[in-house]
């Protein structure tokens, strides 16, 4: 018993002194930022662009963000929820990160974000914005610097509505983000829906769907088919000759810089929606586009812009708090203020920590040999998502 008491006392002393030591050095320590993103396997192009955009902002400051020393820990989730969950708990428990970011996919975000924010770690999403985390499931520690998932689809719905397009044929993969996409589109488009199709996730052949489009002869086709699905669909749509009679519309995901090269000329002229484009003329964006091209030798994508903005947002908050991350309330307030120049221009957070921003309409063009986008109009000014009202924040 005596021995027991003694050992407890000793270990308490050790723990206390160690704790005191860490508190004493905390000020001088770097801010730890954990990034879990997709760097291998299918879909790695997206995660790599987010990482490179983020890294660019850090490099521009010579390894700092907002004047504060940072330690950036980057890990690859390979698009697997299990792996991402494991890395997340390691970053929380062992590395004791202060801020996390990086996730590309909504299903991974749903698996990880609620747990991380419960541990009082700030999460800044550079891409995934599932409705589940925007409405009743919102959290003071969770910020989305990109958009809420429905936003870009809503924008095309609004655009077709504004232009008085009479009828549309819409299709998306049969999974939650696909259903959100078509719901978002229909929230603003009130014309005649000539057909609504849910395709198999990962489907490669769209001959059957394309034949149905021809049969229905709508005025427009709206599709949300992320990644390779969209590439296959657009190519096959053009091979069937339908692009000449029924124009395609979609969110930026199938017409972004990372993917246009693989789609080829089939994408030329297609109208799509985005909150960002490289030709947005503001100081922050001009610098970002020029520096990105210089650093990586390619044009930045939508995802790169979101990674860059995530880093710039963190920088603005760290600058406001003087690099102090121990006062969470102050840090949260500084992030929510969003006091940085976003590459997309106007940007602020709504009550649910999701953006209120303009959404643009772009068209795919050719600059020399390179396919890219130009802005041709604006679908929404200061747009907020439909779930904000359900959020108690």
């Amino acid at each position: 018993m005596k021995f027991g008491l003694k050992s407890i006392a000793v270990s308490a002393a050790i723990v206390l002194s160690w704790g005191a030591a860490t508190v004493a050095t905390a000020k001088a320590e770097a801010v730890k930022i954990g990034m879990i993103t997709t760097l291998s396997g299918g879909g790695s192009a997206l995660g790599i662009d987010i990482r490179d955009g983020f890294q660019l902002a850090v490099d521009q400051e010579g390894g700092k963000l907002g004047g504060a020393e940072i330690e950036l820990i980057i890990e690859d989730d390979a698009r697997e929820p299990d792996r991402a969950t494991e890395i997340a708990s390691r970053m929380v428990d062992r590395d004791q990160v202060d801020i996390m970011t990086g996730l590309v996919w909504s299903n991974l975000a749903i698996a990880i974000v609620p747990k991380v924010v419960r541990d009082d770690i700030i999460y800044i999403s550079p891409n995934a914005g599932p409705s589940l985390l925007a409405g009743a499931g919102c959290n003071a520690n969770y910020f989305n610097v990109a958009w809420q998932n429905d936003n870009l689809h809503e924008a095309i719905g609004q655009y077709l509505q504004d232009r008085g397009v009479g009828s549309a044929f819409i299709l998306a993969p049969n999974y939650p983000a696909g259903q959100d996409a078509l719901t978002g589109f229909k929230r603003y488009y009130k014309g005649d829906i000539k057909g609504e199709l849910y395709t198999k996730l990962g489907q490669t052949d769209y001959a059957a769907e394309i034949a149905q489009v021809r049969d229905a002869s709508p005025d427009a086709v709206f599709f949300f088919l992320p990644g390779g699905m969209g590439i296959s669909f657009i190519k096959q749509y053009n091979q069937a000759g339908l692009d000449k009679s029924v124009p395609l519309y979609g969110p930026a995901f199938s017409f972004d810089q990372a993917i246009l090269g693989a789609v080829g000329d089939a994408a030329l002229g297609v109208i799509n929606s985005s909150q960002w484009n490289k030709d947005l003329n503001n100081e922050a964006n001009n610098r970002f586009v020029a520096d990105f091209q210089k650093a990586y030798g390619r044009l930045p994508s939508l995802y790169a812009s979101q990674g860059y903005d995530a880093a710039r947002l963190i920088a603005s908050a760290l600058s406001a708090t003087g690099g102090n991350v121990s006062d969470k309330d102050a840090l949260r307030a500084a992030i929510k203020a969003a006091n940085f120049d976003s590459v997309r221009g106007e940007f602020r957070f709504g009550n649910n920590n999701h953006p209120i921003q303009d959404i643009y309409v772009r068209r795919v063009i050719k600059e020399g040999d390179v396919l890219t986008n130009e802005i041709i109009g604006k679908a929404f000014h200061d747009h907020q998502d439909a779930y904000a009202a359900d959020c108690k924040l």
Partner: protein
Amino acid sequence: MLLLLEQILNGLQFGVMLFLLAAGLTLVLGIMNLVNLAHGSLYMVGAFVTAAVTSWSGSFMIGLAIALPATMLVGMLVEVIVLRRLYPRHHLDQVLATFGLILFFNELVRVLWGPRPVFLDVPEFLNGSVELLPGIPYPAYRLAIILVGLLVALFLYFLTQRTRIGMLIRAGASNREMVGALGVNVGLLYTIVFGIGAMLAGLAGVMAGPVYSVEMGMGEAILIQVFVVIVIGGIGSIRGALIGSILVGLVDTLGRSFLPTALRLIMDPSRADGMGSALSSMSIYMLMALVLFVKPQGLFRAHG
């Protein structure tokens, strides 16, 4: 009516595409008794090599001419270095090892070509469509896929039924020791068979490149359907692979196009769409269950 005809043609074309992959897979699985999950990786290699050579040389035909021997070579190398050790092992070991190969090939492709999908266009002379019947313009390239698939079926028929190597393949499949005892180099024979299987997968990749997206992991999505095909057709049977492919292609395509419409007749539209798309995603598996219920060995079991 015209829509139905067009969809049947689409189903046939998709089926033939599946056949190009299923033929090689069933040859290896049936004859060498090897479960090769990395068959889709050879398909991916075929597509990437074609895209690279085509963009470098400007000619799809040169891409094709290089991609075929290249995938055959890659296949034979993989057989000699890795798969050869797996023949006597349990199927589970083969699944694990060839799954490892999938990861290896995906990362290899990423190192060589980067993470972004690459571009491959339809060759100039097949660009455009053919008016099969008034009101049904059909892409010429898809007709070419059907033609190539049927030619491959003929080629394989002659190879297995009418040539000496075909005879040895069939004999080696039934009794490996006996063929070996007769002085035939069974190891070399298997390497050649695997090379042919790899080349067929490569050919499927070449044909798929201009239609589908050429990206990392492109083989995995389609491989599941290919396994369904060979289970339906009977493992090891080329004829089974052909019939199974066309059945799966037709059921999948017709299910996707007509199930939701058919269900609208008996329930409200939004439920019909939801249930229709769910059912059509399952249709090929239901077909497989049905076939296995009636014929547990598949439609045309090759041997054993």
